[in-house]
């Protein structure tokens, strides 16, 4: 579904990616592991069109997308839940959800989707008219995920959805994401610091260090890998 081939990218003079190749098959959950500053977020930014790669190519459903605008990429069915949530804090919960559906024109479908997401995240219904900035960290993350789903993506990019959350809340979010993946068939590319949660959630993983992929394998195999265990799982 998503094919990233040998992409390179930089922020000014600093090279962030040195030829990264990643494949995400339809229906799968794939995770990117690695230390801070390894380039994981940069990979997501390239896929969602916020950053142009200087080399390599990105294909979605066989169509090249690395020269397209972020808006066009959302319309093609890729949605990103960005690092730090990036909610519209002064706007209400409902307005945030409506902005998630900005590319859609089917009023009834949007209404139905909000209703369905309220089932996943009941707190959003309760807080509907409150400014997003007044929500707790866990509630904000739920809203960010819900907003990301409102465009009806086929591929969901998640950047550190558990960052700063209590373990119980982050487990709940992963439970919902699994449901979204299995029941709605949404493919997921996940960037995560917490390797234990990530590997128990994902089917396949890539370890990214200093702008390149150093290991890739199924989650089960990665959990067994000596280096991954020592560096990322801590046992």
């Amino acid at each position: 579904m998503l094919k990233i081939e040998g992409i390179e990218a930089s922020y000014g003079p600093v090279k962030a990616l040195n030829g990264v190749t990643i494949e995400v098959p339809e229906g799968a959950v794939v995770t990117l592991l690695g230390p801070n500053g390894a380039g994981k977020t940069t990979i997501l930014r390239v896929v969602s069109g916020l950053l142009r790669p200087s080399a390599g190519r990105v294909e979605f459903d066989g169509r090249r997308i690395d020269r397209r605008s972020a808006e066009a990429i959302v319309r093609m069915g890729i949605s990103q839940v960005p690092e730090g949530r990036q909610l519209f804090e002064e706007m209400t919960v409902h307005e945030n959800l409506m902005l998630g559906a900005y590319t859609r024109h089917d009023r009834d479908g949007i209404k139905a989707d909000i209703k369905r997401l309220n089932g996943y995240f009941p707190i959003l219904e309760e807080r509907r008219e409150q400014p997003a900035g007044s929500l707790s960290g866990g509630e904000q993350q739920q809203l960010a995920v819900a907003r990301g789903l409102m465009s009806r993506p086929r591929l969901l990019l998640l950047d550190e959805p558990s960052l700063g959350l209590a373990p119980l809340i982050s487990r709940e979010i992963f439970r919902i994401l699994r449901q979204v993946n299995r029941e709605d068939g949404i493919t997921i590319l996940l960037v995560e610091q917490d390797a234990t949660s990530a590997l128990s959630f994902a089917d396949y993983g890539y370890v990214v260090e200093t702008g390149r992929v150093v290991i890739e394998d199924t989650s089960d195999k990665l959990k067994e890998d000596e280096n991954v265990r020592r560096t990322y799982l801590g046992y």
Partner: protein
Amino acid sequence: MIEVFLAPAPWNDLPLFGEQVISGLATGSIYALLALAIVLIYRSTDVVNFAQGEMAMLVTFSMWSLTLAGFPPWTVIFIGIALGFALGAFVERTIIRPVEDKPPLNVVVVTLGLFVLLNSIATWIWAQGELPKVFPTPFGFTSVDVGLARVSTHSIGILVVALIVMSVLYLLFNHTKLGLGMRATAHNPGASRLMGINVGRMLMLGWGLAGAVGAVAGMLVAPITFLFPGFMLAVLLYAFAAAVFGGLDSPPGAIVGGLVVGVAENLFGTYTPGDIFGPEMKLPLTLLLLVIVLMFRPQGLFGHVETRRV
């Protein structure tokens, strides 16, 4: 000889007081419109547009020429609004976008440069012949009784037009999808792109709207001050005061600020004791009032202090 003039106390001459308040509200709503234009742009692009008044001036002069060429008044008004929109959008695309990511001072210099450029263009085209030029109002200058006070029909026209413009903006921003996208872009352009919003187009539309609203302010004020290349300067000063007073990022603040400034200006002009200050002191006194308010509320009446949850 200095004329010593002291108006009777408001309670001794209610009609005078009423007239001053209503005409203050009328000029105040012109300040409010220009302040709204400034706030719209500041919110969405973080640019303080010093050329806002001169953009309106250029449009008003063009309208004067169209009137002279024989176009009917309402046609001229609609062309003026469209011209204001087009000029705003054009300025954003060609002049502002290239300096968008540069340090804020660069943008300040660019809008100041635009101020000088537009002023020179207007002087070059229209300053031959007599200045100032008389600019027509579709409302006329007849006096009518409103309660106790006598007010000119132009003042009433100003109030009605301002109310319409503000209502249209309110509906646009709060009840349309386009408005939702424009507000989102103002709050967080990066996240807006991830929602599939064409941020560049929203910024251009924002500047266009501001240009149109500014043009309305220009055509409302020109019948009072007459038309010359510097006629928007005082209005711009008051509008800035109004915008800062209300909070630079708050549209309702711009409206309240404009009305407060307009009324305060009139009341200071009328009621300051003539043996101490002349009515000329109304501008500094008005600004002093605002400075005092800002000492206690630096973000303005309705402005937001930058807060962020970490």
